[in-house]
């Protein structure tokens, strides 16, 4: 289950006050957020993305004093992540044409989508765990069906069927909520 802005912020503040256990939990909770952030923005190899995630975690740690406790945590986090990504492009001299650069540079869009994802988590929470996990792996975190199958320890067709059934249930439920 992914943590909300409020949870993350409370964890960050506990970490700033010196609580190592909560701080470790915070860093772990940031990993999927950061992976998704970079995966949406660059077409690099898996290794590149994991490198960036780790670099960002280190930056979050060493620069944590610059987080203002009175302001949004995710805005701070994604500002750090964005800087690390731009720095990565500059260092690797990877001059690939980027379409919609403005969208990449604007954090607000990602925050909205993060909030959307938090709603998503609520919906997924109501599904059977296998379906929820399959949807999260393939549709949100961007794993391939094969990777998702490996992660969950089930067959590929099982993943496909789970995604299909889960999405159908969700669609029905959302239609129901609207009505």
């Amino acid at each position, binding site marked *: 289950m992914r943590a909300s802005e409020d949870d993350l912020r409370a964890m960050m503040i506990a970490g700033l006050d010196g609580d190592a256990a909560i701080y470790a939990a915070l860093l772990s909770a940031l*990993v999927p957020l950061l992976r998704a952030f970079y995966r949406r923005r660059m077409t690099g190899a898996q290794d590149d993305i994991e490198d960036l995630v780790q670099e960002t975690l280190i930056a979050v740690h060493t620069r944590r004093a610059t987080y203002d406790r009175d302001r949004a945590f995710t805005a701070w986090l994604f500002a750090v992540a964005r800087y690390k990504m731009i720095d990565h492009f500059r260092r690797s001299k990877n001059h690939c044409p980027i379409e919609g650069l403005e969208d990449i540079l604007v954090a607000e869009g990602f925050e909205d989508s993060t909030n959307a994802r938090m709603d998503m988590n609520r919906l997924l929470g109501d599904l059977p765990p296998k379906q929820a996990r399959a949807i999260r792996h393939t549709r949100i975190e961007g794993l391939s069906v094969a990777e998702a199958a490996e992660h969950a320890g089930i067959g590929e067709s099982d993943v496909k069927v789970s995604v299909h059934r889960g999405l159908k249930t969700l669609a029905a439920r959302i239609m129901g909520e609207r009505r």
Partner: protein
Amino acid sequence: MKTDALIRSLAENVKAVPRYAVGRRLAIGLVGGGVISLVAIMLSLGIRPDLLLAMQGFSFWVKWTYTISLGIGAIIVTARLARPDAGRLRHLWLLAVPVALLALLGVAEMSRTPPGDWLAMWLGRSWRDCPRNVLLLSMPIFVGLLWAYRHFAPTNLRAAGAGAGLAAGAFGAAVYCIHCPEVSAIFVLTWYTLGIALATALGALIGPRVMRW
């Protein structure tokens, strides 16, 4: 997995961070650099002999009010730019207020002076040295601010460099006041401001190089 190991090692070393860590660090850099500037001016240019008398006069306080208010404004901007999510700086125009007030005062002074004396009033006796001295005295403060920035997370490095340069220039100029005997507002407006602007430009120039993280 490697990322898990990284998280474990990062979380091993969690010192509590005080609430105003950014401000505290900037203050240490500023005061540390300022003390070095003070020592430097005492050892090289010297304090003006009539400093205590001058401190009872109007023009000395005009100079200090101008430079210190500019410095305080710049340090606030610099503290803001130390955070990655600094956002838009909406109140930047406030930095122009001291300059505008000094310009008004300069016009008032000129209107009370015969036009034949304007050039002497503008150039004073030290216009050639003033901008350079301000720039040199700002350097220790600039280095102090850069030291503070080593643990910050600026994302607009050029602006952060310019802000630090402006703060250093303004406080360097405030230090220079204890030596400089000039009295006219248009002198300060031109030559002090030129020195401060040079420090700002220097900061903007090297900020992107030295503030990367």
